[in-house]
């Protein structure tokens, strides 16, 4: 049958044998999992053998496109890649903007990759011409050089997912980048591709995407677009992107010096925006997005003058900045180096902070640090980025991630590590407890800002605002009563269940993760776009259910890998006071009216699992929940493995 909205096919690539085949889109897959991360999560569940070593040929990578990718639906060009991640053995789905539209123009909604090539190759997807091409000329080159060379070979309009030396060197915090701007990060996708000798995936095509009801589709898409064009802060957003939320970030972002001290830098975040505007060079949009957020930055004076660096968000330019010993130019230099190596900048920064903290505390010595002092400065940071990317000396230890590194440094090293499922938590709940910190703990793959832009991520929201928001999100009335249980306080843990499902359903369609973009969508708008694009009728509730289904199958995949409630752990560090200039900041509830204990946090997890309909003790889906979600096949599988009751 001819699909509308979808490309209509999937692609299978076995790097070990060189076999490549095209397969028609399965209607049951479409019906239950919609597209995008629904597809990739389901296919990963079916294909990735439980217990598989992430860097072995037997691991799979499933790259997917959202259903609306490649169309004029505004801000819908999300690409995702589900795999078993080497940082923590979780099955996770990194996301980025771009690539997905080109993959669909070539005729594919997803690509399944397995095996290991016997030499470095890249996967070239050009319509029906799909081949593995020798990549020896780009192996060893950084991500930007690789992308430019492959675009020169295949046409500058093609899209390129590439890894750098960190991925080649199997660094477990490595990422892949999309067209030099997008980051498929957090967890080590770069190393998975590197382990397969797959340097890049290149796609473009001439096949068009058909639309079932063009007039209906364009009416909804145009309406969303007009609203985005009238975003009151659009002019500022086009340069600063998420950095316009400086005031909010100043309240919720993380701390400095390995979670020991509230960074003065972060307290003065607002002043940073002026400095960011000075390095802004040009904006680069994802397809059909009127709210561009990717920025090319150029250092116009001072150290490294002339350095031009693409960023997925200009905010990342300050990722490495430390107020007293670091400046913006040096931070941009560090970010650029990370991107070129293909290192996750947030994770790299956390690892370097951890190493410096241990050195300063006398836990690791100058000898451990390859004869160099480790100080809170630029020289140490730049040096360690290179060592991690190349797995040299101390960098080789850090390249395996926080948990593996901590085990090399004895009991004291383990005590000072702060991680959730082996990853840097990114945000500090002591500065402000929001949905982000809680959802980072229960997220199947570990901390990230998946549901970013959801109301619980922002401080100062009233119960009335939350109730109104829940109605917009199609949350059932009885659930809204549980969430908004009093006039002055709402239940953060119960709320994040719906935010995750909302995010998950959008990820099936390819709707961007940026909060500002998502704020112009709701389930009703998304359902209308899906229905008019594909001709398959879906309601807002059915779309929300599909998001919940996709989230549950990802959780089930991780349950099968042994993840349970014990892994959804709130770091001990956050129960200690955070040192600020003139005060100590303690872990408080969302409204900051009372201090929270471990029991309070555990109660929040109880509420979260209860709202999800999961086993509260194990923290995994129950048979009933799976059956309610039309996931009888998953229930049968987990039952066979004695993970859920009969």
């Amino acid at each position, binding site marked *: 049958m001819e699909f509308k909205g979808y490309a209509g096919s999937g692609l299978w690539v076995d790097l070990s044998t060189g076999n490549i085949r095209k397969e028609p889109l399965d209607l049951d897959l479409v019906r239950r999992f919609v597209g995008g991360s629904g597809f990739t999560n389901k296919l990963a569940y079916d294909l990735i053998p439980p217990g598989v070593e992430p860097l072995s040929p037997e691991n799979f990578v499933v790259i997917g496109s959202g259903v609306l990718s490649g169309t*004029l639906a505004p801000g819908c060009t999300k690409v995702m890649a589900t795999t078993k991640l080497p940082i923590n053995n979780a099955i996770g789905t990194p996301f980025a903007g771009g690539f997905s539209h080109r993959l669909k123009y070539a005729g594919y909604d997803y690509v399944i990759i397995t095996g290991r090539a016997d030499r470095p190759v890249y996967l070239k997807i050009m319509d029906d011409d799909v081949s593995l091409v020798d990549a020896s000329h780009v192996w060893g080159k950084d991500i930007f050089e690789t992308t430019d060379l492959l675009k020169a070979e295949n046409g500058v*309009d093609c899209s390129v997912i590439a890894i750098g030396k960190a991925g080649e060197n199997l660094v477990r915090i490595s990422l892949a980048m999309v067209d030099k701007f997008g980051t498929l990060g957090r967890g080590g996708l770069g190393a998975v591709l590197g382990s397969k000798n797959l340097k890049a995936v290149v796609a473009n095509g001439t096949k*068009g995407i*058909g*639309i079932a009801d*063009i007039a209906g589709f364009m009416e909804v898409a145009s309406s969303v677009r007009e609203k985005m064009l009238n975003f009151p802060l659009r002019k500022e957003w086009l340069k600063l992107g998420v950095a316009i939320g400086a005031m909010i970030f100043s309240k919720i972002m993380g701390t400095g010096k390995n979670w020991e001290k509230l960074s003065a830098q972060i307290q003065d975040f607002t002043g940073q925006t002026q400095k960011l505007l000075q390095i802004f060079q040009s904006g680069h949009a994802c397809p*059909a997005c009127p709210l561009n957020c990717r920025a*090319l930055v150029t250092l116009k004076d001072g150290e490294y003058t002339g350095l031009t660096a693409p960023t997925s968000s200009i905010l990342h330019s300050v990722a490495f900045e430390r107020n007293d010993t670091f400046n913006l130019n040096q931070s941009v230099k560090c970010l650029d180096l990370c991107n070129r190596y293909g290192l996750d900048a947030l994770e790299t920064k956390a690892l370097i902070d951890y190493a410096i903290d241990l050195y300063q505390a006398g836990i690791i010595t100058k000898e451990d640090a390859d004869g160099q002092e480790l100080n809170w400065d630029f020289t140490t940071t730049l040096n360690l980025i290179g060592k991690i990317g190349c797995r040299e000396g101390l960098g080789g230890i850090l390249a395996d991630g926080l948990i593996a590194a901590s085990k090399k440094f004895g009991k004291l090293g383990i005590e000072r590590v702060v991680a959730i499922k082996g990853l840097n938590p990114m945000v500090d709940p002591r500065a402000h407890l929001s949905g982000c910190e809680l959802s980072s703990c229960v997220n199947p793959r570990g901390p990230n800002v998946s549901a970013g832009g959801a109301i619980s991520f922002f401080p100062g929201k009233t119960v009335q605002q939350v109730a109104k928001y829940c109605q917009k999100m199609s949350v059932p009335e009885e659930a809204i009563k549980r969430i908004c249980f009093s006039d002055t306080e709402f239940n953060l843990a119960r709320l994040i269940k719906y935010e995750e499902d909302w995010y998950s359903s959008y990820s099936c369609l390819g709707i961007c993760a940026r909060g500002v973009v998502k704020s112009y969508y709701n389930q009703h708008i998304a359902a209308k776009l899906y229905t008019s694009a594909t001709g398959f009728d879906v309601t807002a509730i059915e779309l929300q259910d599909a998001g919940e289904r996709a989230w549950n199958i990802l959780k089930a995949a991780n349950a099968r890998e042994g993840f349970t409630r014990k892994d959804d752990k709130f770091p001990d560090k956050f129960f200690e006071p955070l040192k600020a200039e003139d005060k100590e900041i303690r872990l408080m509830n969302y409204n900051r009216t009372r201090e929270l204990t471990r029991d309070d946090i555990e109660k929040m997890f109880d509420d979260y699992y209860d709202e999800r309909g999961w086993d509260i003790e194990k923290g995994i889906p129950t048979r009933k929940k799976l059956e309610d979600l039309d996931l009888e096949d998953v229930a049968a599988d987990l039952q066979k493995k004695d993970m859920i009751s009969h």
Partner: protein
Amino acid sequence: MAGKRAVEAILVKPNECHGCLTCQLICSLRGSGRFNPSRAHIMINRSKDGYEYRLSFMDGCDGCGDDILCVHSCPYGALILERN
């Protein structure tokens, strides 16, 4: 003002282009009933590093009659209609 004359009146401001493909997508939908930039009559030519864009029109462009969809769709002000 219709057809070719409309195209001639389009002022292109490449520095404003963000590479979002909106002009190409609306053009391909009108011309072929499907979304794909390669089917558009407006071209976005990227620099080798991908950081700069040049816009040009192919011979097949008829200005969509009076509609000039690419101009009206551009979210970044890279295509502006200069009325005579």
